[in-house]
């Protein structure tokens, strides 16, 4: 057995051109699939990050109460149940933020622009200062009432400079229009072209504008240590919440939730308040919670990425089938070229299985060498691509991290594809290996006579 493997390994360098050709074909196939997976994986990660900046977290707990007049008000009033539920998942949590938010219109001179604002408790949320990416201005005056941080793109559109005053019109939770005065102290680097980037002001100041008490908040945003487990952690959080308080049904990407529910959820997250009257028999006591995750919101992007991945995988398989045909033909040739040698080995006492081992080992080592070099190439190309700066203004920027592509290579995925290549190589070489093993020794030895 070992002897057969030794011979097989030496045979690889016997027909260098053919081995290199087959190996390169395998390497190319593996390179393509690895790069595509790296890209989609990276896209997923960066879009997730970009969106979580936009929405300010990975998991969002929002609440609503029924007002004495019977309308639904978006706010969290008694947070005991939420606190308990968060405690239960605390080992997974990186940070928790209590925020209020609204979407309204900014006015400056004769220009206006729709903008989402989040109210942040700057004193409590120290990490805000370190996490935010300031492009102009400073956070020195952040504690002054009416201080405003806007996305760079918004400031540019309005033509407003640091230190200038603007007006903001928003509706209160009960539906009245209200206007407040803000001073721009800083701008943030825009992470996306959708100009859906959030602006920030102090929570107390925003609360008075939208008709809440200074200490109130509308949503609890949770950043996790690992975004990958967002759905499982959110499910745990939801079931904990449900055991202590009224909850809205969970709307998730894979459930059959109606598009209207999804859009209602999105606009609630954007702070676009709509006044809804709650029917008597449907009213609840205290705060009714709902739980949403970044993945719920990303479902259209997720399905796009999974389509890209599926197409790439299909191309990969088609490529592999073509390579398989190549392998099969090559080893047919090998069998014909080595007929006498095979006859000799059989005469000397090598069993049929020994001949098969030679063929399988040769094909398998080529597959392994091919995938290994394909993987190294993918890493190289990926590394070079991620060095290129595509800038932040292009349509790509939702998928970029500060102008760069991020490639996320997955080792299990690579191993799986390598396994597929190995299995397919073995399948391709099976028939030639069997015919070679079944050669009649006497006939094989006569082959050169």
């Amino acid at each position: 057995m070992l002897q057969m493997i030794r011979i097989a390994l030496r045979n690889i360098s016997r027909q260098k051109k053919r081995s290199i050709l087959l190996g390169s074909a395998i390497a190319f196939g593996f390179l393509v699939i690895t790069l595509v997976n790296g890209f989609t994986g990276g896209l997923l990660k960066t879009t997730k990050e970009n969106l979580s900046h936009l929405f300010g977290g990975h998991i969002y707990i929002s609440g609503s109460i029924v007002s004495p007049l019977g309308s639904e008000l978006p706010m969290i009033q008694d947070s005991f149940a939420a606190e308990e539920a968060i405690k239960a998942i605390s080992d997974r949590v990186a940070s928790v933020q209590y925020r209020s938010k609204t979407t309204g219109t900014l006015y400056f001179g004769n220009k206006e622009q729709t903008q989402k604002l989040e109210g942040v408790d700057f004193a409590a949320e120290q990490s805000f200062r370190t996490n935010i990416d300031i492009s102009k201005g400073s956070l020195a005056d952040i504690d002054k009432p009416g201080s405003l941080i806007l996305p760079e793109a918004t400031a540019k559109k309005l033509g407003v400079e640091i230190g200038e005053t603007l007006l903001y019109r928003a509706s209160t939770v009960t539906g009245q229009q209200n206007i407040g005065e803000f001073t721009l102290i800083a701008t943030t680097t825009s992470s996306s072209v959708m100009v859906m980037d959030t602006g920030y002001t102090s929570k107390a100041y925003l609360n008075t504008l939208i008709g809440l008490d200074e200490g109130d908040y509308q949503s609890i945003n949770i950043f996790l240590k690992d975004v990958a487990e967002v759905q499982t952690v959110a499910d745990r959080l939801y079931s904990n919440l449900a055991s202590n308080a009224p909850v809205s049904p969970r709307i998730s990407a894979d459930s059959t939730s109606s598009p209207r529910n999804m859009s209602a959820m999105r606009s609630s997250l954007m702070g676009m308040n709509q006044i809804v009257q709650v029917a008597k028999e449907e009213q609840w006591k205290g705060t009714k919670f709902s739980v949403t995750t970044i993945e719920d919101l990303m479902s259209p992007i997720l399905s796009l990425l999974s389509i890209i991945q599926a197409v790439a995988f299909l191309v990969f398989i088609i490529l592999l089938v073509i390579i398989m045909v190549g392998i099969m033909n090559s080893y047919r040739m090998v069998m014909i070229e080595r007929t006498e040698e095979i006859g000799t080995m059989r005469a000397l006492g090598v069993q049929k299985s020994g001949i098969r081992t030679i063929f399988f080992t040769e094909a398998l080592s080529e597959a392994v060498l091919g995938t290994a070099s394909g993987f190294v190439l993918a890493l190289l190309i990926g590394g070079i691509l991620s060095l290129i700066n595509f800038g932040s203004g292009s349509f790509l920027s939702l998928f970029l991290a500060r102008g760069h592509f991020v490639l996320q290579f997955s080792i299990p995925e690579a191993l799986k594809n390598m396994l597929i290549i190995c299995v397919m190589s073995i399948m391709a070489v099976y028939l030639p290996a069997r015919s070679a093993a079944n050669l009649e020794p006497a006939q094989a030895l006569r082959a050169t006579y």
Partner: protein
Amino acid sequence: MAIIRLEKVKKTYPLGKTVVPAVKGVDFEIQKSDFISLAGPSGSGKTTILNMIGCIDTPTEGVVEIDGVKTSDLNDKEITRLRHRTIGFIFQSFNLIPVLNVYENIEFPLLIGDTGISQKEQKKWIQFLIEEVGLGQWQKHRPNELSGGQRQRVAIARALVTKPKIVLADEPTANLDSATGETIINLMKKMNKELGTTFLFSTHDQKIVDLADHVIRLKDGLVSENYRPKAV
């Protein structure tokens, strides 16, 4: 007891719709440790008979018995094992394995299955054979770096490495010039005397035939002469 026994052996090859009779009913016995020549003109059936004795081909009719075992009673695995343990092969065109060097080619049969020779003994035995066939300095060379005569010496050492009872050689000198051919036959004869291995070789060279203890002459797929020449 005879180490090889053929009884009413016939072999036909299919050729289109008809069959070609290559061996038409052959009986003979070979005694252990003899040096036997299978002589006859081209097409007389030498290779066919050697292949059947070597268990790489099966007779259409009749019995081939190797060391008391009827070959028709064995399946492919058992036949392969019998070849490995009991028979050594020397081929006309040497048939060394190109990717292995001289030492590895000689070692090869020992590594493909159990031979009952201990590891320690194996190394000594290979060294002994390499010296016997005079290739001490060529151990690390690959076959394509050797002359025909040298290659056939490697093949002789390889055929003997498992300590087989029988060595079969189909026209071992046909690809060599007559002087080299003679030294090869003399080397085979030397090993036959030293080790007591039965050697059966085919040839159509009368000079070589005369070196045998036992001559079996074939003609048209039948034995035409079967005799023991007077000692040379």
